[in-house]
């Protein structure tokens, strides 16, 4: 039985991008970034399956997942600071800098 998970990877990645592009909230931005992360993690694991080196890809995936968590933490800290200034999580309030 032949399976190919790459279409799912791209679908998930696309969903992440879609979320980033259309949802005007900082929480949704987080979700979009997370979806991108999930897609890449899946792609990494799948690469290990294809190359038959699951241990290597799993260790890479561990690092990637933890980096994801780290980035989310920093992001949330920034969101916290942002909320202090704007009392909102709307990206429409994030348009001071332009031009």
């Amino acid at each position, binding site marked *: 039985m032949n399976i190919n998970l790459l279409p799912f*990877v791209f679908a998930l*990645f696309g969903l*992440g*991008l879609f979320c*980033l592009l259309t949802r005007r909230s*900082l929480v949704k*931005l987080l979700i979009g*970034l997370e979806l*991108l*992360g999930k*897609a*890449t993690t899946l*792609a*990494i694991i*799948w*690469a*290990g399956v*294809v*190359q038959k*080196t699951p241990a290597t*890809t799993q260790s*890479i995936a561990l*690092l*990637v997942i933890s*980096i994801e968590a*780290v*980035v989310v933490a*920093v*992001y949330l*800290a*920034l*969101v916290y*600071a*942002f909320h202090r*200034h*704007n009392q909102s999580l709307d990206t429409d309030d*994030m348009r*001071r*800098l332009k031009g």
Partner: protein
Amino acid sequence: MMTQSALLESAVAFLIFGTLASYLGGAFFKQRERLISGWIATLATTGSLVYFALLFPSLQAGSAQVALFGFIPWRVDLLGWIVATVGVVLALVVNLYSIRYMEEDTGNSKFFPLILLMVLAVVGLAFAADLFHLYLFFELLAISSFPLVAFRKDEPKPVEAGLKFLVASATGSAMVLLGIALVYQGFGTLDLVQLSTLVVGGPSLFLWLPLGLFTVGFGIKAALFPLHTWLPDAHPEAPSGISAMLSGIVIEAGLFALLRVYFTIGGPLPWPDLLIWFALLTMTAGNLMALTQKQMKRMLAYSSIAQMGYILLGIGITASLGAPAGAPGGLFHIVTHAFMKGLAFLCAGALIFRLGSGQTADMRGAAWKMPLTAAAFTVAVLSLAGVPPFAGFMSKLLIYQAGIQSATTLGWVASLIAIANSVLSLGYYLPAVGVLYSKERSPLVAAKAKEVPFLMAAALVILVVLIVYLGISPDPVRQWAFQAFALLKGGF
């Protein structure tokens, strides 16, 4: 005589322990946080720089495998050395400058360690031989720069800039990572040297997708034209020292990563001229946008985008048209740009430090009260525009030459557009200098302007000397740039 790995270990250890010591020292002596953290960081970068300098002679023969601390396999080559050393030099100057500059800020015990981590990331990026390893340093670079951009979190704008930077950067990272996964899926290894041989012999059919993802992913960090949008927000809002670091070495690091990837697995490039088109777009857009900026630092940020176009053009000309001078020109421009843009941002920072305003209009006539700063700014800006006796001219000249050397229509057109851009860039550089030297003075200048304190002035003078020196006798460094690419085989 220390071995190569011992030298590199010392250089890296200085940075690591500098990070820890700087933080702990600052955290323990809360009252003198800024001074202790700052001076420890400065000393750490100095020590690191010394060992980098000692490392140089052993790189003449080509790249070498080094097991850092016994378990980290890096490949040391001249190309990486140049980028890493420029990063360390810039960090040294920025540390020196920030000791005084950050005196109104809190949290300095985090500020200086983060700068050191940033440099560490550049060093790792420069020598990493494994694609995922490279990515990790890339991520380290990003994560250490987010908080620095938003360091003045009590104002809304830096936070906003940090958020935008983070979102763009994380998106780019995800793309890079997806590309890495695809490469691994295709080749079963992530070692760049192995990949470069596999690409030549093995299947490259699938490579367009990861290469595209790498281009866009690293391109976001390198601020190529349509991907640059985070830069004009992040660079001006960061503290000026960080602006200098970001424009001087961080975006170049993104480009360097792209370059490394292209030179290893980019052999069968599916789109030969892409880099050149990107470069032309980037420099034109950057210059155009800089033209109507009202804030000094924002203008400089846009000009960084334009300068990235020049670097990319040099590399692109060599990569796709085969003119040998291009890539060394680009590399040399990385060096000169680090110094001149660093200097420009530090000068802008010095003006803001005294005036409290970043608007160009508020700096009217500041030169008469801050002659050294204004003179340094003039040097930086003229050098950026590529005016002869300064370093920027030398590196730009190499890039123009490469385009003409390639003897193709595209090369010629690219060189002409680059030259036209240089002229265009004078359209905003000169007015900025003119404002400083204006006869009339803005009220802010009349009330507050005075020459910057000694430490900041020292930082400015160091960079001015570097720029003038590289402009008058570019040759050792220019020669290194040529050598770095001559030694390059399979990406290292």
